[in-house]
């Protein structure tokens, strides 16, 4: 048994406050509370296994310290201190998302229902006033809402109003804004996403980055912007940008933002590779469908393997998962198109199961290495 000397001290409110003020977001507050719970459970194990010895006063002091932090964080950020609270929070998040979609739809339907009764001046005024007023509302709600649910809801309403304006106002004045409409929606999506810490708006903005960068390349080629999807390679620039941005600009103050960048970037990049293996005629490269398809299959294999390695070694599970998925899809497509017609069914499934076991073994080795790295043990 190891005697652990813990300095008993009175928990000063000032110290706790100092610690709590370092936490700036609800997500960080929730993370701190979760950390305390894990510590308390582990401490109980250590005490029951007699690894450490704490006096009753020491335990009481630690508990008081933790209770105070939890009280402070729940009061300030409305973080959840119980499992049922967390479940309810998840429900609130889902309701918030559905509410945002419904609010956006209600704005659209409201405008549509009464639209023809207004003259052009009124319509123009309403279209300009809708995003302005909803944005002002979102700013007010953001300043008063501790939980973030209502500010995100108001951000969704504002974004719906803005898109409505971008879609309806130019035709009302017989103007075609072209790709500028995508650019404006993307810029506004980013402002709302970072201002309101909204993942929904960030997803919209990231998709906007993909579309707008592809549109620019398409326009440079002399084609209209809206045919950007005719050549999936147009999306490379945007997808690469999404993958690189979290490395260049830290997203640690925004929960899950870095993950969303990598998720959408990786999914786009690997998705393009897979599409071009199946439909090589969509490629810019004009070396014949077989050559292009074969080249992209090699790209998927190497890209997928590199993605798994990066995902495991750099602790980026989203990249690892999507890379594994892309490899799985490629192998499945190839096997169904090539092996299945040539082999009896039992041999086909046998080969596939051997491949699955091999993949499992490789992933296990990578996982073990990552675990050892995390534990600080060198082989």
């Amino acid at each position: 048994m190891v005697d652990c000397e813990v300095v008993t001290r009175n928990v000063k409110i000032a110290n706790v406050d100092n610690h709590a003020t370092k936490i700036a977001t609800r997500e960080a507050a929730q993370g701190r509370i979760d950390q305390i719970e894990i510590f308390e459970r582990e401490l109980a194990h250590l005490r029951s296994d007699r690894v450490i010895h704490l006096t009753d006063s020491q335990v009481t002091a630690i508990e008081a310290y933790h209770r105070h932090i939890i009280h402070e964080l729940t009061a300030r950020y409305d973080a959840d201190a119980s499992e049922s609270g967390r479940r309810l929070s998840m429900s609130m998040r889902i309701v918030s998302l559905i509410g945002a979609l419904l609010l956006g739809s209600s704005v659209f339907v409201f405008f549509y229902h009464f639209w023809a009764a207004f003259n052009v001046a009124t319509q123009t005024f309403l279209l300009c006033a809708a995003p302005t007023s909803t944005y002002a509302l979102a700013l007010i709600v953001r300043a008063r809402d501790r939980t973030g649910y209502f500010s995100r809801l108001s951000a969704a309403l504002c974004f719906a109003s803005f898109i409505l304006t971008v879609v309806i106002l130019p035709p009302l004045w017989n103007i075609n804004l072209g790709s500028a409409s995508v650019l404006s929606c993307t810029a506004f999506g980013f402002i709302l996403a970072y201002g309101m810490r909204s993942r929904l708006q960030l997803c919209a903005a990231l998709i906007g980055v993909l579309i707008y960068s592809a549109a620019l390349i398409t326009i440079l080629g002399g084609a209209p912007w809206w045919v950007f999807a005719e050549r999936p390679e147009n999306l490379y620039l945007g997808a690469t940008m999404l993958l690189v941005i979290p490395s260049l600009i830290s997203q640690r103050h925004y929960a899950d933002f870095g993950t969303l960048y990598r998720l959408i970037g990786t999914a786009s990049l690997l998705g393009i590779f897979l599409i071009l293996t199946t439909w090589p005629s969509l490629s810019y490269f004009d070396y014949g469908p077989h050559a292009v398809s074969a080249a992209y299959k090699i790209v998927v294999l190497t890209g997928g393997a590199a993605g798994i390695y990066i995902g495991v070694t750099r602790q980026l599970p989203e990249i690892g998962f999507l890379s594994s998925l892309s490899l799985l899809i490629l192998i499945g497509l190839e096997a169904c198109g090539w092996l299945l017609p040539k082999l009896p069914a039992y041999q086909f499934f046998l080969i596939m199961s051997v491949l699955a076991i091999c993949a499992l073994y490789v992933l296990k080795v990578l996982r073990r290495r990552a675990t050892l790295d995390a534990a600080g043990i060198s082989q």
Partner: protein
Amino acid sequence: MNLQRLWLPILGFTVILVVCTGTLLAGIYNRSGTSESTLRLSERELELPTGESGEQENTPLTLHLLWRVETVDQAGSATTEASSTRAAWITQTKLAELEIPSGIRPNTFVSTFLVLEFDRRAHARAVSRACNSASPSRDARTCEFEIKKSSRLYVVDAGRTVAELRARYPDRAHYAIVSGVIKLSHDLNVREPEGYVSSLSLETVQGVEPLRSAIDPATGKMLWHRLQAGHFFDAVISFGRRLEPWNLSIEARESEVISPVEMPQEGRERGFSFSPR
């Protein structure tokens, strides 16, 4: 209040302001000065909004331009199939003129300037083809449709600059120049490029104020609804500096417009010419 706290309101309101004022200024710029061209269209070239019965009053008033292309056999395409009908005037020569390389890949889209011809040669050819008693493809119903109902608005040419096209088509009352897109692919049988007019940059025109807000005293319904029932009207459509159209006026008319039938003469030119009549 420091700048860091103000970035969110400043950026957000700036984007909203840029979008709203930018659109309005672009619209005003398009309508300023002399119109690039002005066409007097009718219900044959402009489709009134349609909607489910009982909900039509709430349908935004948007007039759709009904344009066609001339096919290889000099017939006019259906307006609903115009973008999927091969345009006869998109030839190898035309592509060279547009500086499009000969090695075209399937589904290549090209932004360009297009010429809209209203009630001129292309339509006259379509009428004469449909109504010529000597033609084996003559059909009484098609003939009547071409004379009384079909759109007289054809996309007849493309060019790299507005000035070049306007020099070729100086008549601003019958030829409008608009931005648009052509789609190119190979005709695998003859190894020639196959061209389609994919779309115009703006294919809708918002109805003007009196039509939008006036109520028919007889039925209590909006005026455009009555126009749709009668379905005869004249609309003056102008194309501005940005080559985007707007509706100058719209008036109801008692009867339909009938296109004259001109039978082909001996020695009449065949094929297509890009010079106006």
